[in-house]
């Protein structure tokens, strides 16, 4: 770390030894700018699911950090990710957030781009430009790399990024597999979007946080929207992945999965806390085979670094930075195409009533994050480090023949610590090669 961004002493932003965090990372504009350059412009970012682009010309607009991008199905049915900026004056060439087009016509001077970003032509090409413009050079800029993992489309703006599957590693892949193992998926029409006045990292931090549930969401439990046992179980599993990916959420035993499957089969027996969190598919042998013996026992809650959360309720939430003090939450609801009608209706019911800005759970989250951000603005307040010590030194990473290393524990802050430690390494590295050389492998032994 260099220059003015260093904390008052030599303590790093995240102090792994003591589990403390410099809260200036939530407000400092220079740190935010560096995040855009070293994290968002470098990482593989989730753009869309392939089901959102069913036909030639289907497009969906998204952001990589503050770079606006268009995902579009081109004439060869390939998915392209294009920067939404005309190379002539920089105007956006696509203003709608989704839909279908034949080409991108810039509204300023009429430069026209094909679905793969190629410049088709512009008014006055011959008369005003004397055919001087090499159209092959002046198309819409493309993301450096685009790749699809089981239908989930990611893009990176950095040509030096490793292949997507390497970037995801087994933990990132497992996070996506938890949805994809059920069968061919489809994003439902309608993405809930809202804007919070918080730093994006506080929203990410919260997805690993099983400590806040009983307090923040106390009202939703008191009215019986969801039971306390299912919302904040003590049995937890933490799986940490290279480059900052993680999965931290409730765990069950194989016996509990078998019990769940048997009760689905014969409709008998006592209901259990995990019934609302497990899916019918989780009991299927072929799904278990895809997730592995340990992955099958994790109910989920992955974050694909930096900002894609996959929920337990068939949703994904993208946390998009909008300056140091603002974040947009985009909620995608994603279900297997062949999901029985009743389960599909349940998924929509949960998606419409648990999360999103009017959700019975989500309503109470935003202000915590915005006030945590606001608290980091005070000149003296922000010099007080935050406590991320829960469970430190009390757990052990278990490894076995499955190769799926994990921590089986109670509620803890292992995943948040890993998230900030990884974040710090991304921020220190000047390039992808530097990051590949200087990043931590997930911890082993006592954590």
């Amino acid at each position, binding site marked *: 770390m260099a220059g003015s961004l260093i904390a008052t002493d030599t303590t790093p932003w995240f102090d792994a030894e003591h589990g403390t965090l410099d809260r200036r990372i939530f407000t400092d504009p220079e740190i935010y700018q560096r995040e855009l350059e070293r994290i968002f412009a470098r990482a593989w970012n989730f753009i869309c699911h392939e089901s959102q682009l069913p036909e030639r010309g289907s497009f969906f607009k998204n952001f990589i950090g503050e770079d606006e991008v268009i995902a579009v199905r081109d004439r060869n049915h390939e998915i392209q990710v294009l920067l939404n900026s005309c190379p002539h004056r920089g105007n956006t060439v696509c203003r709608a957030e989704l839909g279908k087009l034949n080409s991108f016509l810039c509204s300023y001077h009429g430069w026209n781009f094909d679905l793969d970003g190629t410049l088709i032509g512009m008014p006055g090409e011959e008369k005003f430009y004397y055919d001087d413009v090499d159209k092959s050079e002046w198309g819409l800029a493309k993301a450096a790399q685009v790749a699809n993992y089981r239908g989930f489309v990611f893009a990176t703006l950095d040509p030096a990024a490793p292949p997507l599957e390497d970037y995801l590693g087994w933990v990132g892949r497992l996070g996506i597999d938890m949805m994809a193992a059920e069968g061919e998926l489809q994003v439902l029409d309608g993405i*809930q979007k809202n*804007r919070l006045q918080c730093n994006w990292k506080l929203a990410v931090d919260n997805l690993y946080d099983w400590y806040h549930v009983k307090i923040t969401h106390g009202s939703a439990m008191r*009215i019986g929207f969801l039971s306390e046992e299912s919302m904040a179980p003590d049995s937890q599993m933490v799986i940490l992945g290279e480059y900052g990916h993680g999965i931290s959420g409730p765990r069950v035993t194989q016996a509990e999965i078998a019990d769940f499957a048997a009760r689905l089969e014969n409709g008998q027996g006592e209901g259990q806390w995990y019934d609302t969190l497990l899916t019918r598919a989780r009991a299927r042998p072929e799904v278990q085979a895809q997730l592995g013996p340990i992955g099958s026992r994790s109910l989920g809650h992955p974050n694909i670094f930096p900002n894609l959360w996959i929920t337990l309720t068939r949703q994904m939430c993208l946390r998009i930075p909008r300056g140091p003090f603002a974040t947009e939450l985009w909620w995608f609801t994603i279900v297997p195409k062949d999901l029985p009608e009743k389960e599909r209706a349940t998924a929509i019911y949960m998606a419409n009533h648990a999360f999103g*800005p*009017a959700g*019975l759970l989500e309503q109470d989250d935003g202000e915590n994050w915005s006030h945590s951000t606001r608290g980091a603005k005070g000149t003296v307040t922000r010099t007080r480090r935050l406590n991320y010590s829960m469970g430190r030194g009390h757990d052990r990473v278990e490894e076995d023949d499955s190769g799926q290393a994990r921590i089986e524990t109670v509620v803890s802050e292992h995943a948040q610590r890993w998230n900030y430690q990884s974040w710090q390494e991304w921020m220190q590295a000047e390039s992808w090669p530097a990051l590949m050389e200087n990043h931590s492998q997930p911890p082993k032994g006592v954590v």
Partner: protein
Amino acid sequence: MAAFHDLSLQERLLLTFEAEEFLYREASLLDERRLDEWLELVTDDIHYWMPIRRTTTAKEVALEFTQPGGMAFFDDDRKMLGLRVQRLAAGRAWAEDPPSRTRRLVTNIRITEIDGDEITVTANFQLYRTRLDSEEDTWIGRREDLLRRVGGELKLARRHIFLEQTVILAQNMSNLF
């Protein structure tokens, strides 16, 4: 089904006045945080719905709103509205503790249809919310309500809310519209 404009001026005046009184009264109950009393004004079969709105090209403007049965911001029956009201009274409903301060302006009220005991009313609204020391949210939109006469009293049997925002520029929608 009768066309509203087929009625006499006097009939239209009386009916519109009645609908206006109802809408002003329920807005006032919501502003005054008398949610239990507000809940008594809705029927058991109410559909309270706010679709998600998207920016589309002019050509594809038919895609602007999500459709009933799909994704939405609100898609509530009487039971879910009851849960929302209960939640606020349950304690630990932090989005409304301390409570927000709201003011609803309801205007451009027009009856568009009459069918037996039911009248369809469209109205524009502005909902202003301020919270703590400096937070402010404003929502403007149109509501399409179905009012039903039950035992001589008007009740709210359907409310479809169409906001002008696509990205909701607020940290939550902990209030009713």
